[in-house]
């Protein structure tokens, strides 16, 4: 089950939300959340439920042991923490990256594999790791830990929240109209991104890159559409995740940020899946603002890039791309930053687009040959045509949505629009009413269009 499944959106989620509202106690809400989350997590994959319980209890027990030993017997605590890391890593590899074991005894059918194992494993390990570092105390109540580990709010697209950030909310939280309102709005807009916009860019990408003919514009637009597709899918799921959490009474940290030209490529890589990047940075000890050890931070960025690439997918392409991104971050930290900082914002945006294209574009190809061919295609080398009709049609058929997507991604444009609306609404009550009415109507329209799109595709 995923967030965009109809049976989740209009079956499991409303039932979970309504049942949660029947009692104000957090224990009751946690129980409902655990039951519905296990259903969500193990939908069609009952094997996963057993798995969750096993590893969850292991994390809990190891956490308790580490908590009691971390001061008296630190090496033993470290050993246990490492053991927990190995266990979670094995879980992630076997169930999250099962393609590695295809044809072996560990190769499993797709139906057996639970979703979100990457995030689940990180959460499990981060709990024990935080206990070891003394950031939190070991949790005695296994149900609190279970609420944190299996909550469906965190399953599809993160964020990777530390237990310390969630503990207070797990023990005591309230659901009020403000949270419900904000949650539903965020959920609907996220659904619009994931269902409508992502789908449009998938079509453009297919027309540009997946046909048999290579065209110059296909190389450019296809790759930009590739980025846009995953950007809107990811940010849409993140928004849905935060919306679902708000409806359940939780306030989660953001998992993506606006792209700012001033932050250069270093800022760009931190805008996407922010919490995962932070987690690995934290693990490698490169999060501090310690300017004295610039070299260490820069070198750490390379390892961090490779690790994040591995976390996404265990394949040479992801490792190379992750390492390349880390290298550019490293270069920026060491010397490029000072040079690029003097450039105009437009030039910085161009730099960001080109750097992203040439580095992350590698994810689309299975070989160096394909990548080389695409790079040449960008310059018109080896392409017979400039534009294919399929690509042109894909763009023309969806140009309104492309414009909307541009306004969302381009921070200055979006700020201009929202700032204009705010100024207008501040004029008088009538103007404010008009702006609010437009907001509500557009949210409702996005909801209806998303539902129609999902139902039509079902």
């Amino acid at each position, binding site marked *: 089950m995923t967030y965009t*499944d*109809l*049976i989740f959106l*209009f*079956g499991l989620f*409303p039932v979970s939300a309504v049942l949660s509202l029947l009692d104000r106690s957090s224990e009751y809400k946690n129980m409902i959340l655990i039951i519905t989350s296990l259903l969500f997590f193990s939908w*069609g994959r*009952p*094997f996963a439920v057993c798995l969750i319980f096993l590893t969850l209890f292991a994390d809990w027990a190891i956490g308790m042991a580490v908590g009691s030993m971390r001061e008296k017997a630190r090496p033993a605590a470290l050993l246990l923490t490492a053991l927990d890391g190995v266990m979670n890593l094995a879980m992630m590899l076997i169930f999250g990256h099962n393609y590695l074991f295809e044809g072996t005894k560990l190769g499993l059918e797709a*139906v*057996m594999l639970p979703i979100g194992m990457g995030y689940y494993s990180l959460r499990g390990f981060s709990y024990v790791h935080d206990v070891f570092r003394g950031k939190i105390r070991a949790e005695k109540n296994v149900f609190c830990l279970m609420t944190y580990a299996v909550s469906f709010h965190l399953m599809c697209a993160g964020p990777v929240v530390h237990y310390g950030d969630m503990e207070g909310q797990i023990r005591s939280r309230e659901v009020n*109209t*403000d949270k419900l*309102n904000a949650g*539903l*709005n965020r959920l*609907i807009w996220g659904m619009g991104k994931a269902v409508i916009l992502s789908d*449009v860019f*998938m079509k453009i990408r*297919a027309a540009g*890159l*997946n*046909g*048999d*003919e290579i065209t110059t514009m296909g190389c450019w637009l296809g790759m930009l559409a590739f980025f846009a597709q995953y950007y809107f899918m990811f940010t849409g799921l993140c928004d849905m995740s935060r919306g679902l959490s708000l409806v359940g009474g939780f306030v989660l940290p953001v998992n993506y940020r606006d792209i700012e030209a001033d932050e250069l490529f270093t800022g760009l890589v931190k805008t996407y899946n922010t919490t995962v990047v932070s987690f690995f940075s934290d693990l490698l000890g490169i999060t501090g603002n310690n300017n004295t050890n610039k070299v260490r931070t820069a070198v750490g960025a390379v390892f961090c890039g490779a690790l994040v690439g591995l976390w996404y997918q265990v394949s040479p392409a992801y490792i190379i791309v992750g390492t390349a991104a880390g290298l550019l971050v490293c270069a920026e930290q060491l010397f490029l930053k000072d040079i690029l900082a003097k450039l105009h914002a437009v030039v910085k945006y161009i730099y960001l687009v080109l750097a992203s294209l040439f580095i992350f574009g590698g994810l*689309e*190809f299975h*070989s160096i*040959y*394909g*990548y080389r*061919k695409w790079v040449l295609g960008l310059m018109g080398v080896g392409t*017979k*045509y*400039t*534009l*294919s*009709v*399929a*690509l*042109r049609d*894909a*763009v*023309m*058929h*969806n*140009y309104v*949505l492309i414009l909307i997507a541009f306004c969302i991604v381009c921070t200055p444009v979006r700020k201009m629009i929202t700032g204009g609306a705010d100024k207008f609404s501040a004029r008088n*009550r009538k103007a404010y009413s008009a702006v*609010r009415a437009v*907001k*509500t109507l557009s949210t*409702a329209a996005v909801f209806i*269009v998303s*539902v*129609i*799109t999902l139902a*039509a*595709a*079902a």
Partner: protein
Amino acid sequence: MEKNFSKLKAEADRIVLPDECEENDRAVRYLALETGVGHYDNLNLLIMAVLFIFVSVAFLAVNGGRINNDDDEFAFSMKTLMSGEFTKTIEEKYISELPIPDEMKRAGEYVSLLYGFGNKLSEKESGNYSTASSDPLPDSDHNAFDRDDDDDQGLSENAVTTRAVKTDKDGNTVTEPDSVETAPGGGTTAVSRPPLTASTTSVSEEDDDEETTTTNNEAPSVTTTTTTTGTSATTESTTETSETSETSESDTETSEPDTETSEPDTSGPDTETTEVPAETGPVTDTGPDTDTEPEQPENSEGPAE
């Protein structure tokens, strides 16, 4: 009395209102606005919640008209649960019973008209209307860049070759030379790539006198129609549709029952696109088990840029 009143009035006029009053007015306006914020927030929440609940209830309670009485499939047991069949059946049942599925697809098409230029509504009566899937992607896994053998030398995606295996009077096969189809002038020529693909195969079991093969050389958008026309009244046809097709404009027609072959229309400079009709004459018949029909060919656009 009147004098006193005038005096008081004159005194009152002399009093200048302090700034605090203006600030108070502003504060009152702000409070009113705040109240408005709460008011609109509640209204917004009400509308969204009602919409959500309405859709949830409608999807759960309203039956799409397809009553499924196969309760055996729906039986709960440890075996069905552990194998994942139980949850799969629930999901399939839920999706199959969505209310007004056809209208949803229709509404989806109407909505897509707002997305940009050139979106069309499929005509239900024309055979284009697909109830199985809406606008599937062509071959999103296919990556032209990762293919090493790209030396197709002009027989690229949009080069549609219509070949007919001719037989002469003695029954011998007559082979025609392949026509190399390249864009006239090459360069910046927009080429037609049907984003979707149909593969139709029709087989007549008797009297294999004549065979017509129409091939759209455009992987992944390959349209292949193989028709074996028989003279017998008994004809068995099978149509396999992998994906619906938006094929190109007709320059060549495929074989009619009494036509031996179909040949590529190579006249004129724009010979690279050839229409491949989805239906290849009366011999081709869509099997009863086929949910989808290949779409009628749409226009192929020749060099546009």
